[in-house]
């Protein structure tokens, strides 16, 4: 499988605070890779670093073989990356439909609006809603994911997409991740809800104190239960 993302010795800072201390990870085409870890372990900062959204970075981030560590955010996105942030970032001054249609095309083969509405039927019903932020939390999360599927992005960075959502919505999101994987998307999932991530991911990275503490693949999951209990308290 071709390597889509390779991160080596990644360090990142917010002002004076040193957050990432030499992260190394790789993601192959078509994989779902999950970053596990407690709050503050550096998982969100890792995704933001890939997008160039942290103040200072050092090390190496290669996307499709291209070194991007010194690139501005908009240029990184054009390598075919779709980013869904933890806070969802739905724009209150835009309608649901405007939010969905906002991101520009950054690659070939994006999903059509009809395909997206088939995948997220709630959004079809609510598309004329005047303000994107008037949607429920679950609908906003779906909108945040849906809008990056239109753009032709093939590497999706999804940050805590189940946070604060009802179990029925979480299950729906799980089914959507499976469908996206079947369609060939490569997904990096930052998740605290281990039960959600466990059946979806091909490989797992466990982060602690801004570093990768452990890595294992899905078949090894059962043998790592005790270790996960220590790292995550699950």
């Amino acid at each position, binding site marked *: 499988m071709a390597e889509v993302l390779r991160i080596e010795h990644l360090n990142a800072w917010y002002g004076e605070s040193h957050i990432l201390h030499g992260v190394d990870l790789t993601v192959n085409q078509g994989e779902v890779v999950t970053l596990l870890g407690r709050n503050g372990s550096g998982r969100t900062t890792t995704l933001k670093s890939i997008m160039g959204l942290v103040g200072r970075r050092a090390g190496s981030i290669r996307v499709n073989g291209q070194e991007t560590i010194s690139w*501005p955010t*908009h240029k990184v996105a054009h390598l075919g990356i779709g980013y869904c*942030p933890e806070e969802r*970032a739905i*724009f209150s*001054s835009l309608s649901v439909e405007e939010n969905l249609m*906002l991101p520009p095309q950054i690659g070939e083969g994006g999903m059509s609006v009809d395909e997206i509405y088939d995948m997220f039927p709630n959004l079809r019903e609510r598309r004329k809603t005047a303000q994107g932020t008037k949607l429920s939390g679950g609908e906003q999360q779906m909108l945040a994911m849906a809008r990056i599927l239109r753009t032709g992005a093939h590497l999706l960075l999804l940050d805590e997409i189940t946070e604060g959502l009802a179990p029925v919505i979480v299950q729906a999101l799980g089914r959507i991740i499976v469908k996206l994987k079947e369609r060939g998307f490569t997904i990096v999932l930052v998740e605290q809800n281990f039960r959600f991530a466990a059946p979806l991911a091909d490989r797992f990275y466990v982060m602690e104190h801004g570093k990768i503490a452990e890595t294992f693949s899905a078949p090894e999951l059962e043998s790592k239960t005790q270790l996960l209990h220590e790292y995550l308290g699950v």
Partner: protein
Amino acid sequence: MTEIFGVPTQALFGQLLIGLINGSFYALLSLGLAVIFGLLNIINFTHGAQYMMGAFAAYFLLNKLGLNYWWALVLAPLAVGATGVIVERLMLSRLYKLDHLYGLLLTFGLALIIQGAFRHEYGSAGLPYSIPEILSGGTNLGFMFLPKYRAWVIVASLAVCVGTWFVIERTKLGAYLRAATENPAMVQAFGVNVPRMITLTYGFGVALAGLAGVMAAPIYQVNPLMGADTIIVVFAVVVIGGMGSIMGAVITGFGLGVIEGLTKVFYPEASNTVIFVIMAIVLMIRPQGLFGSR
């Protein structure tokens, strides 16, 4: 002679027209300020000086290059907008990570430098700029005399305001601008070059000031202090309309121009202060402005 509320119609409609003319300039200038504040979060105190630069650019184009008013309508906003792009790239862009007060101080300082330089070179008496021939003269409507140039200014500024509103509220480019106002990092993560968009937006806002300056030149003459006199009222208009609100800037600009004109008819003593009285009342009742949301 026909009278309304004891006032001759000629006088009433004459002042109403002056109110609409002033309102046109208030709307154009506050529109530029609103666009800049909306995206950059900077209160552009240089706006008055940039309005004056537009008038001077028209004057230079006519007297140095022989290019008439219609050329000036296109070239002067482009030239003044280009100076705005340079100011944003060289100076303002270095201040975005600091408190907004620094942007205000920088633009205030720039305004003083620009006005001082023009005043040093050209004095403060004002330079004449004649009305283009096709727009000279006027029409007697029966109840009032309507000068053609003033009618043109009202129609043209209304068209520019509506056009700008349409672009910002109804187009994809406008959606990027509105989204970047809320969360520039996220818009950039979608692949939009937000720093360039910010530069061009500032340039566009400044170009609007330059355009207002060209249109004002035949009415108020070309004077280094023309912007300083107007900008204080324009800031009051922006505060009343709501900082960053496009529609608020346009409606309030025209509305307050008319109110100011009518005050000149019915209670002239208050005509210079009426806008500031309204600002004080609005700030007490609705601090975010009539059309503002934050």
